[in-house]
């Protein structure tokens, strides 16, 4: 059994609680044990890095040090948390002065960074540590005829990492491969690596809404029934703000946006409710019909 120090991050406490529960449910099926870091703190998001770099690194270091105490590699489901923690870990490992400075601070909370662990994203753990062959063994209800737009977004794959999980950074395929393993059909659309706007949804809404619109329209144009994400901020921007996109641009978009763990859970035969399905703003009825084997209903909805 593979075991990790689990870092849910602030979004998964409430805003993206469905990502949290579906991660735990699917991990259990796959024999991945997630031991939550007991007193984890915010990773600093992007905002802390606007204020002070060392402070932001210290925030991440506290979580890393607690995972080290557990003796486990850290895993995060949020792309932002993953990116921050990954690069904080690398900077601290490669810069002794920085590590000394941060350790002086950590000592005030009886912690120490030693550089003993690695940082992973949950989709990387599933695809590469567990493996697609193993995942396939657990698929009881393949999502036949479901057309899914895999949305990589940004911080899951960029900036480039030395021990590259991605493969070709301009043309990653692991999300498509995972969807195929679930029995779904990944659709090809040009915006899959493009930004959702991130925190611009607060700080420059006009820009963010136009970015969300472009993403939704190309996914819809490619015949997708649903967009799959691996990041809470992407999910919020693409789904919650569809109403505002429609109001701003006079569009009529209605595209469900679900976490890849929710789709995976459905393919495993886990009841929808246990995957947090039912708290979304754009109903996922067609996806559910498809998971129940009522596949014609799903396929007939949008593509014909």
């Amino acid at each position, binding site marked *: 059994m593979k075991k990790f120090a689990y870092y849910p991050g602030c979004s998964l*406490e409430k*805003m993206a609680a469905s990502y949290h529960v579906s991660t735990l449910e699917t991990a259990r099926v796959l024999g991945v044990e997630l031991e939550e870091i007991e007193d984890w703190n915010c990773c600093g998001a992007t905002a802390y890095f*606007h*204020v002070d770099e060392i402070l932001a690194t210290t925030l991440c270091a506290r979580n890393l040090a607690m995972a080290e105490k557990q003796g486990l590699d850290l895993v995060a489901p949020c792309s932002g948390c993953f990116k921050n923690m990954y690069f904080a870990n690398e900077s601290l490992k490669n810069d002794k002065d920085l590590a000394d400075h941060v350790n002086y601070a950590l000592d005030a*909370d009886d912690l120490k960074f030693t550089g003993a662990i690695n940082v992973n994203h949950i989709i990387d753990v599933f695809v590469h540590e567990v493996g697609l062959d193993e995942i396939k063994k657990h698929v009881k209800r393949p999502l036949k005829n479901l057309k899914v737009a895999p949305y990589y977004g*940004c*911080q899951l794959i960029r900036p480039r990492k030395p021990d590259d999980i991605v493969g070709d950074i301009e043309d990653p395929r692991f999300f498509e491969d995972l969807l195929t393993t679930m029995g779904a059909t990944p659709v090809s659309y040009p915006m899959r690596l493009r930004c959702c706007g991130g925190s611009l949804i607060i700080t420059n809404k006009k820009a963010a809404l136009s970015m969300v619109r472009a993403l939704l329209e190309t996914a819809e144009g490619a015949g997708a029934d649903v967009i799959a994400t691996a990041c809470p901020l992407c999910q919020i921007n693409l789904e919650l703000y569809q109403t*505002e996109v429609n109001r701003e641009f006079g569009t009529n978009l209605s595209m469900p946006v679900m976490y890849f763990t929710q789709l995976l859970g459905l393919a495993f035969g886990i009841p929808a409710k246990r995957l947090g399905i039912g708290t979304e703003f754009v109903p996922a009825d067609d996806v559910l019909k498809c998971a129940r084997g009522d596949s014609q209903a799903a396929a007939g909805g949008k593509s014909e």
Partner: protein
Amino acid sequence: MAVRPTFSQEISNLLYASHGHPLAVCMQCGLCSASCPVVDHMDNSPRRLIAMIHADLKDDVLKSTTFWYCASCYHCTVRCPRGINIAEMMYGLKRYSMWRNRYDKSLIGPDFSERFAKMIIKTGRSWEPALAPSFIFKGGVQGFLYETQTALKLMQRGRIPMTPSKIKRIKGFRRMLGRIIPLAGVK
């Protein structure tokens, strides 16, 4: 005698820690601007901003919206043929303009970041309602109504917590932060 660094040198210095190539190697190819998903909304494209830094146009650079509209998607960073970490440069400019209190005061970004930083010092975790004052009144009456609608939708589905979440060892956490930057009133 000490020589005062130019603005261009100051900004280049901000990048030394990020292990990217120095800004001076930029050849103005514009791949950063072509890759940027927000470029249409910026007053200066990333390429142009770098040219402005090289020309020491400090005032124009600091009042530019470019770096505050950067969404940190890192497309420019991974594509720059000269290996400049452009997204990191945008972070550096954000910090520089906040240190110097030299940013366009109509922007939401700086206020939002400051509130965020203070919120984390208080509780150790993020709680969305604490950030609302930085933006809910910026869109006029209609904007305020839209923001309220959005918040209500989230509450109806139990997706906004009513009270902030707080870490357990908050005292140790604050002592830790106090060793990086002095925090007034922190024990």
